[in-house]
């Protein structure tokens, strides 16, 4: 492995497959600057017609939840089924909404 200090920064890549859909995270890459990151994203992640738009963001700019907080953060939602909108009776007219 090369010295981390000499590595180009890491970028997360988001690709939108079609207009109207959302950008989905698809991986990461190393690049020296934003312009290079966009070009590299195009070359690495859209070679097989996967994309119509790409976003890149510096990985160190992403603020993530702490895996250690997983229980506290996410488990309390487990027994709150009433938060799903499944208890409404839909009128026939909007049944296939």
């Amino acid at each position, binding site marked *: 492995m090369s010295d981390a200090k000499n590595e180009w920064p890491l970028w997360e890549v988001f690709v939108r497959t079609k207009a109207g859909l959302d950008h989905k995270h698809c991986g990461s890459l190393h690049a020296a600057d934003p312009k*290079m990151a966009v070009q590299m994203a195009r*070359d690495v992640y859209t070679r097989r017609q996967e994309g119509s738009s790409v976003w890149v963001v510096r990985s160190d700019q992403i603020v993530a939840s702490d895996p250690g907080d997983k229980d506290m953060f996410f488990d309390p939602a487990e027994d709150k089924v009433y938060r799903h909108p499944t208890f409404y009776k839909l009128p026939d007219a909007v049944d296939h909404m």
Partner: protein
Amino acid sequence: MQTSVQLPTDPALQYLLRIGDTCLILGQRLGEWCGHAPILEEDIALTNMALDLIGQARGVLTLAGQRCAPVLDEDQLAFLRDERDYRNPTLAELPRSDFAFTVLRNAMLSTWLKLLWERLRDSRDAELAGIAGKALKEARYHQQHAADWVVRLGDGTEESRRRSEAALAMLWPYAAELFDDDAVDAAAEAGGMGPARSSLREPWLAEMAEILGEVHLPMPKESGFRSTGSRGVHSEHMGYILAEMQYLQRAYPGGAW
């Protein structure tokens, strides 16, 4: 051992071969970077561009083969010609050297191809115009990618600057050939097939000046040297690259995946 194909001396055929062979040979040179580029991402980028170029070569060589009697297919033209029948400018066949050399050559040739494809969209040959429309999009990206690298390396470290200057000194004399008209150009222009190469010179110089000017790399003075690959007289490097390209088709005629 598969013997070589023979070609007629039709100027329109020569014109097409000059374009198709430039793409073919440059594509082969870029393919040599597969597994050797400085970083994984650039490795993929260079081979993507190599494949774009091979795709362009396929289209143009298929068209060229229809001008031969009997008709030759793209593979026969790509792999079964003698060295003298390849018409790429010498610039395309020079060994890949270091990364600064590769990106500068890419900038020079993709700029040239981009300008050529732009003009060929109006070709009287509808098939050639169709190929040009598709290839132009690819060439625009190739140019941008290469030009960005020329700027990064020209404006990078002391070593990258030194290598950029060395690459420029080495490559620049081969540019003159790209604009050196002869009877093939005159016939293509008169017949509405495509532009004479000399007409690409001014726009090419302007675009190269913009790229090099951004990092204050002075454009070398024009010299009397003229390379002659597009007339079939190649450098000593051509035989080696053809040997590598042709080995399979020569040893196993008609071999396919």
